[in-house]
């Protein structure tokens, strides 16, 4: 059973910005979906997913790439060719 408090907590973890008014709807939908997920309790076996490619890496050498202007052009806020972000500290 997922509670409104759980959904509020998940909303915080995911930085999704959730209103108190939305909590009841999301919680109701969550419970229906999570109840459906319970069918996974019946899964047998313990095999890991088979993968056919591992650690595909290239040599660590500089290659042509976007210019600074191209790479920052879509940013909402720029300063001196850099992307401006909200303060972390």
């Amino acid at each position, binding site marked *: 059973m997922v509670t409104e408090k759980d959904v509020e907590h998940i909303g915080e973890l995911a930085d999704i*910005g959730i209103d108190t008014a939305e909590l009841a709807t999301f919680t109701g939908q*969550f419970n229906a979906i999570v109840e459906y997920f319970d*069918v*996974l309790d019946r899964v047998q076996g313990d095999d890991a*997913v088979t993968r056919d*490619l591992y650690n595909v890496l290239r040599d660590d050498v500089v290659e042509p790439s976007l210019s600074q202007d191209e790479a920052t052009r*879509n*940013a909402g806020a720029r300063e001196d060719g850099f992307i401006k972000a*909200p303060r972390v500290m």
Partner: protein
Amino acid sequence: MAVHTINFEPDDRYNAFLKVCAKPSHGEGKLVGIAIAVKDNISTQGIETTCASKILKGYVPPYDAHAVGLIKNAGAAVAGKTNMDEFGMGTSTENSAFGPTLNPRDTGRVPGGSSGGSAAVVAAGMVRMALGTDTGGSIRCPAAFCGIVGLKPTYGRVSRYGLIAYANSLETIGPMATNVADVSLLMSVIAGHDRKDTTSHDKPYDHTPSGDINGLRIGVPEEYFGKGVDPEVAAVVRRAIGRLEDLGASTVPCSIPSMEYALAAYYVICTSEASSNLARFDGVRYGPAADTRKSWHAAYQDVRKQGFGPEVRRRIMLGTFALSSGYYGKYYAKAQIARENVRKDFARLFQDVDVLCGPTMPMIAFKLGEKSDPLSMYLSDILTVPVNLAGIPAISVPCGKVQGMPVGLQVMGRPFEDERVIDVAYAYEQAVKP
């Protein structure tokens, strides 16, 4: 290379295009002058790419997706960007921030999703071909609902470079068109190795469809005709499989026991990957700007609350939940085991049969607004998601009608046997050609 332009002025009565390129240029090649529509989660240099989300409004990619570069090099003209469920999350194209796309066969119904715009522009004859993407059925479902052909290639056969990620272990770019030959032609251009995609395989596709299926062994999984599948849809598809028998194929009844939990596993995995992939949308590098005067979390939450629609927020939260401490073992870890069981079920069946056939969707296109609760929408993906979990190729080809609406025959094949599913679809298409 000579550069030409075409005039492209589609009569889009279905809200299928998010952006139309009125005079697209093109060069020479095997797609010379063909107008191709591109789903809006595939990056196009210089053309706004939004994933049908407010959070990417105004985003203009500085580079082309690998597949887009390939079609341009082959002479195609990028005709525009098509509507979709926001970030590919949906089965109806109703979850677009820019309004739903209507089904050209019946405008009171959905076109399917999430590549509903791409299917609609092809079905309405606005373009000859389109690129879609398929994470859990997003090419095959709208192909079935709109009465066109759509191929979900083997995972790794078409580069995902420039495809804006939603559930990267499941999704792929693929071709859509009105007929199998065009789907095959477009596939021949977009398939092949790309070093910029670490999951890319070196398996080019150079195939001319053949209608000879004499001796082909077809598995018919009982789950594709069981509970939850409209009996009228099932009957149309059984008749289509009968036509394949007339052409010399034999059928074998079979079962995919892991389908009991495949849909749940799919939704746990896709939402978990979404919660991680969509963390990048924070208003800093692209999209509407974050308020840099606010604290990090407050600014983030403002942008994401206003920018993401309800289904995207729901899936990000579901994924965050499935990966959170105390629930990881119960949901995510179990879903990964379930995924391997699905893969093994297919591998076992493909020892005895060459392809599997069944309906693409358990019903015809539903009415706009008909499926209002999320779980009932998710359940309609039951016949398409197993293919994505296993990474195998599958095609949807029109095979008849129910209540005047198209029904899709789904043909699923062994990994990297995209050619074979193309051939089976082609054989059927040629056999029923008027």
